[in-house]
Protein backbone atom coordinates (compact mmCIF):
# COMPACT_ATOMS: atom_id res chain seq x y z
CA UNK A 1 0.00 0.00 0.00
CA UNK A 2 2.69 2.46 1.02
CA UNK A 3 5.23 1.86 -1.69
CA UNK A 4 2.68 1.08 -4.37
CA UNK A 5 1.05 4.44 -3.64
CA UNK A 6 4.42 6.18 -3.65
CA UNK A 7 5.15 4.67 -7.07
CA UNK A 8 1.78 5.81 -8.44
CA UNK A 9 2.29 9.31 -7.03
CA UNK A 10 5.72 9.52 -8.61
CA UNK A 11 4.18 8.48 -11.96
CA UNK A 12 1.51 11.17 -11.61
CA UNK A 13 4.24 13.74 -11.06
CA UNK A 14 6.00 12.78 -14.28
CA UNK A 15 8.47 10.02 -13.46
CA UNK A 16 8.23 6.54 -15.05
CA UNK A 17 8.45 4.15 -12.11
CA UNK A 18 8.43 0.37 -12.10
CA UNK A 19 6.75 -0.99 -9.00
CA UNK A 20 7.77 -4.53 -8.22
CA UNK A 21 5.71 -6.86 -6.09
CA UNK A 22 7.65 -9.82 -4.76
CA UNK A 23 4.66 -11.78 -5.96
CA UNK A 24 1.28 -10.52 -7.08
CA UNK A 25 -0.26 -12.13 -4.02
CA UNK A 26 1.06 -9.15 -2.08
CA UNK A 27 -0.49 -6.79 -4.57
CA UNK A 28 -3.86 -7.70 -3.11
CA UNK A 29 -3.07 -5.46 -0.16
CA UNK A 30 -2.03 -2.66 -2.48
CA UNK A 31 -4.69 -3.29 -5.09
CA UNK A 32 -6.54 -0.08 -4.19
CA UNK A 33 -3.56 1.94 -5.41
CA UNK A 34 -3.33 -0.12 -8.63
CA UNK A 35 -7.01 0.19 -9.49
CA UNK A 36 -8.37 3.32 -7.84
CA UNK A 37 -5.27 5.49 -7.97
CA UNK A 38 -3.63 4.26 -11.17
CA UNK A 39 -6.11 2.59 -13.53
CA UNK A 40 -9.06 4.94 -13.17
CA UNK A 41 -7.31 8.29 -12.95
CA UNK A 42 -6.96 9.17 -16.63
CA UNK A 43 -10.69 8.63 -17.12
CA UNK A 44 -11.81 10.36 -13.91
CA UNK A 45 -9.73 13.42 -14.70
CA UNK A 46 -11.25 13.74 -18.16
CA UNK A 47 -7.86 13.05 -19.77
CA UNK A 48 -5.80 15.46 -17.65
CA UNK A 49 -3.75 13.11 -15.50
CA UNK A 50 -2.09 9.99 -16.89
CA UNK A 51 -0.18 7.44 -14.86
CA UNK A 52 2.78 5.91 -16.74
CA UNK A 53 3.58 3.13 -14.30
CA UNK A 54 4.51 -0.55 -14.60
CA UNK A 55 3.58 -3.05 -11.91
CA UNK A 56 5.54 -6.25 -12.34
CA UNK A 57 6.21 -9.43 -10.45
CA UNK A 58 5.70 -13.20 -10.40
CA UNK A 59 2.08 -14.31 -10.70
CA UNK A 60 0.36 -17.63 -10.15
CA UNK A 61 1.62 -20.96 -8.86
CA UNK A 62 5.21 -21.56 -7.99
CA UNK A 63 6.51 -24.73 -6.31
CA UNK A 64 5.47 -25.64 -2.79
CA UNK A 65 4.63 -22.11 -1.67
CA UNK A 66 1.05 -23.04 -0.74
CA UNK A 67 -2.23 -21.20 -0.83
CA UNK A 68 -1.41 -17.59 0.08
CA UNK A 69 1.48 -17.38 -2.37
CA UNK A 70 0.09 -19.12 -5.42
CA UNK A 71 -2.87 -17.13 -6.72
CA UNK A 72 -3.20 -16.04 -10.35
CA UNK A 73 -4.37 -12.44 -10.76
CA UNK A 74 -4.88 -12.37 -14.53
CA UNK A 75 -8.68 -12.35 -14.17
CA UNK A 76 -8.62 -9.80 -11.34
CA UNK A 77 -6.55 -7.23 -13.20
CA UNK A 78 -7.95 -8.17 -16.61
CA UNK A 79 -11.34 -7.09 -15.34
CA UNK A 80 -10.49 -3.40 -15.00
CA UNK A 81 -10.78 -0.72 -17.67
CA UNK A 82 -7.87 1.69 -17.64
CA UNK A 83 -5.28 -1.04 -17.01
CA UNK A 84 -3.24 -2.96 -19.51
CA UNK A 85 -2.27 -6.45 -18.47
CA UNK A 86 0.45 -8.50 -20.12
CA UNK A 87 1.58 -12.06 -19.46
CA UNK A 88 4.88 -13.16 -21.03
CA UNK A 89 5.72 -16.81 -21.66
CA UNK A 90 9.28 -17.01 -22.99
CA UNK A 91 12.39 -14.85 -22.87
CA UNK A 92 11.60 -12.71 -25.91
CA UNK A 93 8.07 -12.11 -24.55
CA UNK A 94 9.57 -10.97 -21.28
CA UNK A 95 11.98 -8.55 -22.91
CA UNK A 96 9.65 -7.17 -25.55
CA UNK A 97 6.70 -6.77 -23.21
CA UNK A 98 8.54 -5.10 -20.34
CA UNK A 99 10.02 -2.58 -22.76
CA UNK A 100 6.62 -1.85 -24.27
CA UNK A 101 5.13 -1.62 -20.80
CA UNK A 102 7.69 0.92 -19.65
CA UNK A 103 7.28 3.02 -22.79
CA UNK A 104 3.49 2.94 -22.49
CA UNK A 105 1.95 6.05 -20.95
CA UNK A 106 -0.64 4.00 -19.08
CA UNK A 107 -0.60 1.71 -16.04
CA UNK A 108 0.57 -1.74 -17.17
CA UNK A 109 0.49 -4.86 -15.02
CA UNK A 110 3.08 -7.43 -16.09
CA UNK A 111 2.31 -10.90 -14.76
CA UNK A 112 5.54 -12.87 -14.81
CA UNK A 113 6.10 -16.45 -13.69
CA UNK A 114 8.65 -17.53 -11.12
CA UNK A 115 9.13 -20.98 -12.59
CA UNK A 116 9.91 -19.47 -16.00
CA UNK A 117 12.71 -17.21 -14.76
CA UNK A 118 15.19 -20.05 -14.91
CA UNK A 119 14.13 -21.55 -18.25
CA UNK A 120 16.42 -20.91 -21.22
CA UNK A 121 15.09 -20.10 -24.68
CA UNK A 122 16.50 -19.52 -28.12
CA UNK A 123 16.72 -15.78 -28.54
CA UNK A 124 16.08 -14.63 -32.13
CA UNK A 125 18.38 -12.05 -33.70
CA UNK A 126 15.97 -9.12 -33.72
CA UNK A 127 15.26 -9.65 -30.02
CA UNK A 128 18.87 -8.79 -29.23
CA UNK A 129 18.27 -5.12 -30.07
CA UNK A 130 17.80 -2.71 -27.17
CA UNK A 131 14.72 -1.32 -28.86
CA UNK A 132 13.07 -4.69 -29.35
CA UNK A 133 9.41 -4.19 -28.52
CA UNK A 134 6.44 -6.51 -28.53
CA UNK A 135 3.19 -4.61 -29.08
CA UNK A 136 0.76 -4.78 -26.20
CA UNK A 137 -2.59 -6.15 -27.34
CA UNK A 138 -1.30 -8.61 -29.94
CA UNK A 139 -1.22 -12.39 -29.54
CA UNK A 140 1.33 -14.64 -31.24
CA UNK A 141 0.74 -17.93 -33.03
CA UNK A 142 3.52 -20.10 -31.63
CA UNK A 143 2.65 -23.11 -33.73
CA UNK A 144 0.47 -23.32 -36.82
CA UNK A 145 -2.18 -26.05 -36.97
CA UNK A 146 -5.40 -27.02 -38.67
CA UNK A 147 -7.39 -29.26 -36.34
CA UNK A 148 -7.83 -27.25 -33.15
CA UNK A 149 -7.01 -23.87 -31.62
CA UNK A 150 -5.31 -23.99 -28.23
CA UNK A 151 -5.01 -20.62 -26.46
CA UNK A 152 -2.94 -19.97 -23.35
CA UNK A 153 -0.91 -17.34 -21.52
CA UNK A 154 2.27 -17.55 -19.47
CA UNK A 155 3.77 -20.89 -18.46
CA UNK A 156 0.90 -23.04 -19.78
CA UNK A 157 1.86 -21.92 -23.31
CA UNK A 158 4.88 -24.18 -22.93
CA UNK A 159 2.67 -27.08 -21.85
CA UNK A 160 0.46 -26.48 -24.90
CA UNK A 161 3.47 -26.58 -27.20
CA UNK A 162 4.52 -29.87 -25.58
CA UNK A 163 1.01 -31.29 -25.90
CA UNK A 164 0.96 -30.27 -29.56
CA UNK A 165 4.25 -32.10 -30.17
CA UNK A 166 2.84 -35.30 -28.61
CA UNK A 167 -0.40 -35.04 -30.59
CA UNK A 168 1.42 -34.33 -33.86
CA UNK A 169 2.73 -37.90 -33.70
CA UNK A 170 -0.90 -39.04 -33.78
CA UNK A 171 -1.67 -36.81 -36.73
CA UNK A 172 -3.44 -34.08 -34.76
CA UNK A 173 -2.15 -30.62 -35.67
CA UNK A 174 -2.78 -28.02 -32.96
CA UNK A 175 -2.58 -24.28 -33.53
CA UNK A 176 -1.07 -22.88 -30.33
CA UNK A 177 -1.73 -19.23 -29.56
CA UNK A 178 0.32 -17.36 -26.97
CA UNK A 179 -1.97 -14.53 -25.79
CA UNK A 180 0.90 -12.34 -24.55
CA UNK A 181 -1.65 -9.68 -23.52
CA UNK A 182 -4.63 -10.28 -21.25
CA UNK A 183 -6.05 -6.77 -21.60
CA UNK A 184 -6.73 -5.46 -24.22
CA UNK A 185 -7.33 -9.00 -25.41
CA UNK A 186 -6.49 -9.89 -29.02
CA UNK A 187 -9.68 -11.78 -29.66
CA UNK A 188 -9.33 -11.30 -33.42
CA UNK A 189 -6.33 -13.63 -33.65
CA UNK A 190 -8.23 -16.28 -31.67
CA UNK A 191 -11.37 -15.85 -33.79
CA UNK A 192 -9.47 -16.13 -37.07
CA UNK A 193 -7.86 -19.31 -35.80
CA UNK A 194 -11.15 -20.85 -34.63
CA UNK A 195 -12.76 -20.02 -37.95
CA UNK A 196 -9.98 -22.11 -39.51
CA UNK A 197 -9.83 -25.05 -37.06
CA UNK A 198 -13.45 -25.18 -35.78
CA UNK A 199 -12.36 -26.22 -32.28
CA UNK A 200 -11.17 -24.34 -29.22
CA UNK A 201 -9.44 -25.20 -25.96
CA UNK A 202 -8.29 -22.48 -23.56
CA UNK A 203 -5.57 -23.15 -20.99
CA UNK A 204 -4.69 -21.07 -17.91
CA UNK A 205 -3.18 -21.51 -14.47
CA UNK A 206 -5.86 -19.51 -12.65
CA UNK A 207 -9.12 -20.74 -11.13
CA UNK A 208 -11.95 -21.55 -13.53
CA UNK A 209 -14.73 -19.25 -12.34
CA UNK A 210 -14.78 -15.83 -14.02
CA UNK A 211 -11.35 -16.49 -15.51
CA UNK A 212 -9.46 -15.73 -18.70
CA UNK A 213 -10.88 -18.82 -20.44
CA UNK A 214 -14.39 -17.85 -19.43
CA UNK A 215 -13.91 -14.44 -21.06
CA UNK A 216 -12.51 -15.99 -24.25
CA UNK A 217 -15.47 -18.37 -24.52
CA UNK A 218 -17.97 -15.57 -23.96
CA UNK A 219 -16.39 -13.44 -26.66
CA UNK A 220 -16.19 -16.33 -29.11
CA UNK A 221 -19.92 -16.87 -28.64
CA UNK A 222 -20.59 -13.21 -29.34
CA UNK A 223 -18.47 -13.04 -32.46
CA UNK A 224 -18.27 -14.49 -35.96
CA UNK A 225 -16.28 -17.56 -34.84
CA UNK A 226 -19.25 -19.14 -33.01
CA UNK A 227 -20.83 -20.42 -36.18
CA UNK A 228 -17.58 -22.15 -37.08
CA UNK A 229 -17.37 -24.22 -33.90
CA UNK A 230 -18.00 -27.91 -34.38
CA UNK A 231 -17.98 -28.54 -30.64
CA UNK A 232 -18.38 -26.43 -27.49
CA UNK A 233 -15.25 -24.55 -26.46
CA UNK A 234 -13.46 -26.19 -23.55
CA UNK A 235 -11.43 -24.70 -20.69
CA UNK A 236 -8.41 -26.16 -18.93
CA UNK A 237 -7.68 -24.31 -15.70
CA UNK A 238 -6.16 -24.52 -12.26
CA UNK A 239 -8.14 -26.71 -9.85
CA UNK A 240 -10.85 -24.84 -7.96
CA UNK A 241 -9.22 -24.99 -4.51
CA UNK A 242 -6.72 -22.87 -2.60
CA UNK A 243 -3.31 -24.23 -3.54
CA UNK A 244 -2.28 -27.11 -1.28
CA UNK A 245 1.28 -27.76 -0.17
CA UNK A 246 1.94 -31.51 -0.58
CA UNK A 247 3.57 -32.19 -3.95
CA UNK A 248 1.06 -34.74 -5.16
CA UNK A 249 -1.78 -32.36 -4.35
CA UNK A 250 -0.08 -29.31 -5.86
CA UNK A 251 0.74 -31.21 -9.07
CA UNK A 252 -2.94 -31.94 -9.48
CA UNK A 253 -3.90 -28.30 -9.01
CA UNK A 254 -2.14 -26.92 -12.08
CA UNK A 255 -2.99 -27.89 -15.67
CA UNK A 256 -0.56 -30.57 -16.87
CA UNK A 257 0.29 -31.65 -20.39
CA UNK A 258 -1.87 -34.75 -19.96
CA UNK A 259 -4.88 -32.62 -18.96
CA UNK A 260 -4.45 -30.48 -22.07
CA UNK A 261 -4.14 -33.54 -24.31
CA UNK A 262 -7.26 -35.04 -22.74
CA UNK A 263 -9.24 -31.84 -23.27
CA UNK A 264 -8.09 -31.57 -26.89
CA UNK A 265 -9.07 -35.14 -27.65
CA UNK A 266 -12.44 -34.71 -25.95
CA UNK A 267 -13.15 -31.60 -28.00
CA UNK A 268 -12.18 -33.42 -31.18
CA UNK A 269 -14.26 -36.39 -30.07
CA UNK A 270 -11.28 -38.74 -30.29
Amino acid at each position, binding site marked *: *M*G*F*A*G*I*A*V*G*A*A*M*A*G*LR*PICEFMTFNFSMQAI*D*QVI*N*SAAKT*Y*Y*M*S*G*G*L*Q*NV*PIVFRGPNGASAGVAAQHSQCFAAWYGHC*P*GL*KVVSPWNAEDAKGLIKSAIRD*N*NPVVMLENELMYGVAFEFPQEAQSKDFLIPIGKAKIERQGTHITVVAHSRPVGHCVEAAAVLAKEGIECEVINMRTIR*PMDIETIEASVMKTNHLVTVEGGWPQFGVGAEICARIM*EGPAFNFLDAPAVRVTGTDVPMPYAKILEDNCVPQVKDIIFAIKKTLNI
Partner: protein
Amino acid sequence: MMQTVRRMELKADQLYKQKIIRGFCHLCDGQEACCVGMEAGINPTDHLITAYRAHGFTFTRGLSVREILAELTGRRGGCAKGKGGSMHMYAKNFYGGNGIVGAQVPLGAGIALACKYNGKDEVCLTLYGDGAANQGQIFEAYNMAALWKLPCIFICENNRYGMGTSVERAAASTDYYKRGDFIPGMRVDGMDVLCVREATKFAAAHCRAGKGPILMELQTYRYHGHSMSDPGVSYRTREEIQEVRSKSDPIMLLKDRMVNSNLASVEELKEIDVEVRKEIEDAAQFATADPEPPLEELGYHIYSNEPPFEVRGANQWIKFKSIS
Protein backbone atom coordinates in the same frame (compact mmCIF):
# COMPACT_ATOMS: atom_id res chain seq x y z
CA MET B 1 -10.17 34.21 -1.71
CA MET B 2 -11.69 32.79 1.47
CA GLN B 3 -14.89 34.59 0.71
CA THR B 4 -14.99 33.04 -2.76
CA VAL B 5 -14.47 29.57 -1.32
CA ARG B 6 -17.16 30.18 1.30
CA ARG B 7 -19.72 31.43 -1.23
CA MET B 8 -18.83 28.67 -3.68
CA GLU B 9 -19.42 25.98 -1.07
CA LEU B 10 -22.71 27.53 0.01
CA LYS B 11 -23.80 27.66 -3.62
CA ALA B 12 -22.91 24.00 -3.98
CA ASP B 13 -25.07 23.27 -0.92
CA GLN B 14 -27.95 25.08 -2.61
CA LEU B 15 -27.49 23.26 -5.92
CA TYR B 16 -27.28 19.93 -4.14
CA LYS B 17 -30.56 20.55 -2.33
CA GLN B 18 -32.10 21.40 -5.70
CA LYS B 19 -30.78 18.02 -6.90
CA ILE B 20 -28.70 19.68 -9.58
CA ILE B 21 -25.61 18.21 -7.92
CA ARG B 22 -25.77 14.45 -7.22
CA GLY B 23 -23.83 11.82 -5.36
CA PHE B 24 -21.06 12.93 -3.05
CA CYS B 25 -20.56 16.53 -2.01
CA HIS B 26 -18.16 17.24 0.86
CA LEU B 27 -18.09 20.93 1.71
CA CYS B 28 -15.29 22.80 3.42
CA ASP B 29 -16.98 25.96 4.68
CA GLY B 30 -15.34 26.77 7.99
CA GLN B 31 -12.03 25.41 6.74
CA GLU B 32 -11.27 28.20 4.26
CA ALA B 33 -8.21 29.40 6.18
CA CYS B 34 -6.56 26.05 5.47
CA CYS B 35 -6.66 26.02 1.67
CA VAL B 36 -6.11 29.75 1.30
CA GLY B 37 -3.38 29.96 3.93
CA MET B 38 -1.48 27.01 2.48
CA GLU B 39 -1.56 28.37 -1.05
CA ALA B 40 -0.17 31.65 0.23
CA GLY B 41 2.73 29.78 1.82
CA ILE B 42 3.88 27.90 -1.30
CA ASN B 43 4.61 28.50 -4.98
CA PRO B 44 2.44 27.52 -7.95
CA THR B 45 5.28 25.15 -8.91
CA ASP B 46 4.85 23.24 -5.66
CA HIS B 47 2.46 20.32 -5.52
CA LEU B 48 -0.64 19.54 -3.49
CA ILE B 49 -2.82 16.49 -3.02
CA THR B 50 -5.79 16.03 -0.76
CA ALA B 51 -8.78 13.75 -0.11
CA TYR B 52 -12.40 14.36 -1.05
CA ARG B 53 -13.08 17.68 0.72
CA ALA B 54 -11.33 19.26 -2.20
CA HIS B 55 -13.34 22.09 -3.79
CA GLY B 56 -11.50 24.80 -1.85
CA PHE B 57 -8.10 23.45 -2.89
CA THR B 58 -9.21 23.06 -6.49
CA PHE B 59 -9.94 26.78 -6.48
CA THR B 60 -6.80 27.89 -4.66
CA ARG B 61 -4.70 25.78 -7.00
CA GLY B 62 -5.96 27.76 -9.93
CA LEU B 63 -9.23 26.49 -11.36
CA SER B 64 -12.19 28.83 -11.77
CA VAL B 65 -15.42 28.61 -9.80
CA ARG B 66 -17.16 28.02 -13.15
CA GLU B 67 -15.14 24.91 -13.92
CA ILE B 68 -15.60 23.60 -10.40
CA LEU B 69 -19.36 24.11 -10.19
CA ALA B 70 -19.81 22.76 -13.72
CA GLU B 71 -17.93 19.63 -12.71
CA LEU B 72 -20.18 19.28 -9.66
CA THR B 73 -23.24 19.55 -11.87
CA GLY B 74 -21.72 17.03 -14.28
CA ARG B 75 -21.49 19.20 -17.38
CA ARG B 76 -19.09 19.28 -20.30
CA GLY B 77 -17.61 22.56 -19.08
CA GLY B 78 -16.50 20.93 -15.85
CA CYS B 79 -12.79 20.68 -15.15
CA ALA B 80 -12.86 16.92 -15.69
CA LYS B 81 -15.40 17.22 -18.51
CA GLY B 82 -18.08 15.89 -16.20
CA LYS B 83 -16.29 12.53 -15.88
CA GLY B 84 -15.08 12.96 -12.32
CA GLY B 85 -17.49 14.87 -10.14
CA SER B 86 -16.89 16.30 -6.68
CA MET B 87 -14.03 14.06 -5.65
CA HIS B 88 -12.01 13.89 -8.86
CA MET B 89 -10.93 17.37 -9.88
CA TYR B 90 -7.37 17.90 -11.12
CA ALA B 91 -5.29 20.93 -12.06
CA LYS B 92 -1.65 21.69 -12.73
CA ASN B 93 0.34 20.45 -9.74
CA PHE B 94 -2.91 19.53 -8.03
CA TYR B 95 -3.54 15.81 -7.90
CA GLY B 96 -7.13 15.82 -6.70
CA GLY B 97 -9.59 15.07 -5.20
CA ASN B 98 -9.20 11.39 -4.05
CA GLY B 99 -12.09 9.23 -2.98
CA ILE B 100 -10.42 6.42 -1.03
CA VAL B 101 -9.65 7.61 2.49
CA GLY B 102 -5.92 7.75 3.09
CA ALA B 103 -4.81 6.56 -0.36
CA GLN B 104 -3.71 10.08 -1.25
CA VAL B 105 -1.01 10.09 1.43
CA PRO B 106 1.35 7.56 -0.17
CA LEU B 107 0.58 9.25 -3.49
CA GLY B 108 1.73 12.56 -1.99
CA ALA B 109 4.94 10.98 -0.73
CA GLY B 110 5.47 9.68 -4.27
CA ILE B 111 4.99 13.14 -5.72
CA ALA B 112 7.54 14.37 -3.17
CA LEU B 113 9.88 11.62 -4.38
CA ALA B 114 9.51 12.96 -7.91
CA CYS B 115 10.26 16.46 -6.58
CA LYS B 116 13.47 15.22 -5.01
CA TYR B 117 14.35 13.21 -8.12
CA ASN B 118 13.88 16.23 -10.36
CA GLY B 119 15.98 18.42 -8.09
CA LYS B 120 13.99 21.61 -8.57
CA ASP B 121 13.43 22.38 -4.86
CA GLU B 122 9.70 21.74 -5.13
CA VAL B 123 7.71 20.36 -2.22
CA CYS B 124 4.49 18.38 -1.98
CA LEU B 125 1.71 19.19 0.49
CA THR B 126 0.03 15.91 1.36
CA LEU B 127 -3.26 16.34 3.17
CA TYR B 128 -5.45 13.99 5.15
CA GLY B 129 -8.04 14.25 7.90
CA ASP B 130 -8.24 13.24 11.53
CA GLY B 131 -10.04 10.06 10.45
CA ALA B 132 -7.44 8.98 7.90
CA ALA B 133 -4.66 9.74 10.40
CA ASN B 134 -5.18 6.33 12.00
CA GLN B 135 -4.65 4.40 8.76
CA GLY B 136 -1.70 2.09 8.26
CA GLN B 137 -0.67 3.45 4.87
CA ILE B 138 -0.16 6.88 6.44
CA PHE B 139 2.52 5.37 8.68
CA GLU B 140 4.07 3.55 5.74
CA ALA B 141 4.30 6.91 3.98
CA TYR B 142 5.81 8.56 7.09
CA ASN B 143 8.45 5.84 7.23
CA MET B 144 9.58 6.03 3.63
CA ALA B 145 9.41 9.83 3.51
CA ALA B 146 11.64 10.08 6.55
CA LEU B 147 13.97 7.31 5.41
CA TRP B 148 14.55 8.90 2.03
CA LYS B 149 14.21 12.52 3.23
CA LEU B 150 11.42 13.30 0.82
CA PRO B 151 10.28 16.95 0.60
CA CYS B 152 6.81 16.02 1.81
CA ILE B 153 4.74 18.21 4.12
CA PHE B 154 2.20 15.93 5.78
CA ILE B 155 -0.81 18.01 6.78
CA CYS B 156 -3.56 16.69 9.04
CA GLU B 157 -6.70 18.81 8.72
CA ASN B 158 -8.19 18.02 12.09
CA ASN B 159 -11.81 19.15 12.06
CA ARG B 160 -12.54 17.09 15.20
CA TYR B 161 -14.80 14.54 13.49
CA GLY B 162 -14.11 11.64 11.17
CA MET B 163 -17.55 11.52 9.56
CA GLY B 164 -19.61 11.14 12.73
CA THR B 165 -16.90 9.93 15.06
CA SER B 166 -15.25 12.47 17.32
CA VAL B 167 -11.47 12.36 17.63
CA GLU B 168 -11.73 11.26 21.28
CA ARG B 169 -13.66 8.16 20.20
CA ALA B 170 -11.39 7.39 17.26
CA ALA B 171 -7.79 7.92 18.26
CA ALA B 172 -5.69 6.58 21.10
CA SER B 173 -3.65 9.76 20.69
CA THR B 174 -5.31 12.93 19.42
CA ASP B 175 -1.98 14.74 19.22
CA TYR B 176 -1.99 14.34 15.46
CA TYR B 177 1.08 16.53 15.04
CA LYS B 178 3.05 14.00 17.11
CA ARG B 179 1.83 10.90 15.29
CA GLY B 180 4.70 11.14 12.81
CA ASP B 181 6.97 9.97 15.64
CA PHE B 182 10.39 10.57 14.07
CA ILE B 183 9.00 13.34 11.84
CA PRO B 184 8.95 16.80 13.47
CA GLY B 185 5.44 18.16 13.82
CA MET B 186 3.64 21.42 14.56
CA ARG B 187 0.16 22.17 15.72
CA VAL B 188 -1.36 25.14 13.90
CA ASP B 189 -4.49 27.22 14.40
CA GLY B 190 -6.34 26.25 11.25
CA MET B 191 -8.91 29.05 11.63
CA ASP B 192 -6.29 31.77 11.32
CA VAL B 193 -5.24 32.18 7.72
CA LEU B 194 -2.04 34.08 8.56
CA CYS B 195 -1.02 31.40 11.03
CA VAL B 196 -1.57 28.73 8.38
CA ARG B 197 0.42 30.71 5.86
CA GLU B 198 3.39 31.21 8.17
CA ALA B 199 3.41 27.61 9.29
CA THR B 200 3.29 26.46 5.66
CA LYS B 201 6.18 28.74 4.75
CA PHE B 202 8.20 27.34 7.63
CA ALA B 203 7.41 23.78 6.66
CA ALA B 204 8.23 24.38 3.00
CA ALA B 205 11.57 25.97 3.94
CA HIS B 206 12.36 22.92 6.09
CA CYS B 207 11.75 20.60 3.16
CA ARG B 208 13.53 22.73 0.60
CA ALA B 209 16.59 22.74 2.88
CA GLY B 210 16.73 18.98 2.38
CA LYS B 211 15.82 18.15 5.98
CA GLY B 212 13.19 15.63 4.98
CA PRO B 213 9.47 15.51 5.72
CA ILE B 214 7.61 17.57 8.30
CA LEU B 215 4.12 17.32 9.75
CA MET B 216 1.50 20.02 10.40
CA GLU B 217 -1.75 19.55 12.28
CA LEU B 218 -4.27 22.24 11.40
CA GLN B 219 -6.94 22.54 14.05
CA THR B 220 -9.99 23.56 12.10
CA TYR B 221 -13.76 23.01 11.90
CA ARG B 222 -16.37 22.32 9.28
CA TYR B 223 -19.80 23.90 9.54
CA HIS B 224 -21.52 21.37 7.30
CA GLY B 225 -21.81 17.70 8.10
CA HIS B 226 -19.30 15.26 6.66
CA SER B 227 -21.12 15.41 3.33
CA MET B 228 -24.47 16.58 2.05
CA SER B 229 -26.02 13.33 3.30
CA ASP B 230 -25.03 14.19 6.84
CA PRO B 231 -26.94 16.93 8.66
CA GLY B 232 -23.99 17.14 11.01
CA VAL B 233 -25.97 17.53 14.22
CA SER B 234 -26.42 14.00 15.43
CA TYR B 235 -22.89 13.77 16.78
CA ARG B 236 -22.28 17.37 17.76
CA THR B 237 -24.43 20.14 19.20
CA ARG B 238 -25.78 23.15 17.35
CA GLU B 239 -24.31 25.18 20.21
CA GLU B 240 -20.84 23.93 19.37
CA ILE B 241 -21.23 24.84 15.70
CA GLN B 242 -22.63 28.24 16.63
CA GLU B 243 -19.80 28.89 19.06
CA VAL B 244 -17.15 28.23 16.40
CA ARG B 245 -19.03 30.43 13.93
CA SER B 246 -19.21 33.35 16.28
CA LYS B 247 -15.76 33.13 17.85
CA SER B 248 -13.46 31.52 15.29
CA ASP B 249 -14.87 32.01 11.81
CA PRO B 250 -11.78 32.37 9.59
CA ILE B 251 -13.26 35.07 7.37
CA MET B 252 -14.51 37.07 10.34
CA LEU B 253 -11.14 36.80 12.07
CA LEU B 254 -9.28 38.14 9.06
CA LYS B 255 -11.82 40.89 8.42
CA ASP B 256 -11.61 42.10 12.01
CA ARG B 257 -7.85 42.10 11.88
CA MET B 258 -7.75 44.05 8.64
CA VAL B 259 -10.27 46.63 9.78
CA ASN B 260 -8.68 47.05 13.21
CA SER B 261 -5.23 47.54 11.68
CA ASN B 262 -6.62 49.96 9.11
CA LEU B 263 -5.56 47.68 6.28
CA ALA B 264 -9.03 47.92 4.79
CA SER B 265 -12.27 49.66 5.49
CA VAL B 266 -15.57 47.93 6.07
CA GLU B 267 -16.79 49.37 2.75
CA GLU B 268 -13.85 47.96 0.81
CA LEU B 269 -14.50 44.53 2.27
CA LYS B 270 -18.18 44.85 1.39
CA GLU B 271 -17.18 45.57 -2.19
CA ILE B 272 -15.20 42.34 -2.28
CA ASP B 273 -18.27 40.49 -1.01
CA VAL B 274 -20.40 41.97 -3.77
CA GLU B 275 -17.90 40.99 -6.45
CA VAL B 276 -17.62 37.49 -5.07
CA ARG B 277 -21.37 37.03 -5.05
CA LYS B 278 -21.49 38.08 -8.67
CA GLU B 279 -18.71 35.68 -9.63
CA ILE B 280 -20.49 32.82 -7.90
CA GLU B 281 -23.85 33.66 -9.48
CA ASP B 282 -22.30 33.72 -12.94
CA ALA B 283 -20.59 30.45 -12.31
CA ALA B 284 -23.76 28.84 -11.00
CA GLN B 285 -25.64 30.06 -14.06
CA PHE B 286 -23.05 28.45 -16.30
CA ALA B 287 -23.03 25.27 -14.27
CA THR B 288 -26.79 24.88 -14.58
CA ALA B 289 -27.08 25.90 -18.22
CA ASP B 290 -24.08 24.07 -19.71
CA PRO B 291 -25.11 20.80 -21.41
CA GLU B 292 -24.13 17.38 -20.12
CA PRO B 293 -21.17 15.69 -21.77
CA PRO B 294 -22.01 14.14 -25.16
CA LEU B 295 -22.83 10.44 -25.01
CA GLU B 296 -20.36 9.77 -27.83
CA GLU B 297 -17.55 10.71 -25.44
CA LEU B 298 -18.50 8.18 -22.77
CA GLY B 299 -15.66 5.89 -23.79
CA TYR B 300 -13.00 8.56 -24.12
CA HIS B 301 -9.91 8.82 -21.89
CA ILE B 302 -9.46 5.17 -20.98
CA TYR B 303 -5.84 5.15 -22.12
CA SER B 304 -3.44 8.01 -22.73
CA ASN B 305 -1.61 8.38 -26.02
CA GLU B 306 -3.37 5.42 -27.64
CA PRO B 307 -4.85 4.87 -31.12
CA PRO B 308 -8.67 4.85 -31.06
CA PHE B 309 -10.40 1.61 -30.11
CA GLU B 310 -13.86 0.40 -29.13
CA VAL B 311 -15.36 0.06 -25.69
CA ARG B 312 -18.11 -2.45 -25.03
CA GLY B 313 -21.46 -1.09 -23.86
CA ALA B 314 -24.29 -2.74 -21.96
CA ASN B 315 -24.53 -5.47 -24.59
CA GLN B 316 -22.30 -6.66 -27.41
CA TRP B 317 -24.01 -4.49 -30.00
CA ILE B 318 -23.53 -1.24 -28.12
CA LYS B 319 -20.08 0.16 -28.72
CA PHE B 320 -18.47 3.41 -27.70
CA LYS B 321 -15.46 4.86 -29.42
CA SER B 322 -12.49 5.51 -27.18
CA ILE B 323 -9.90 8.13 -27.97
CA SER B 324 -7.20 9.37 -25.64
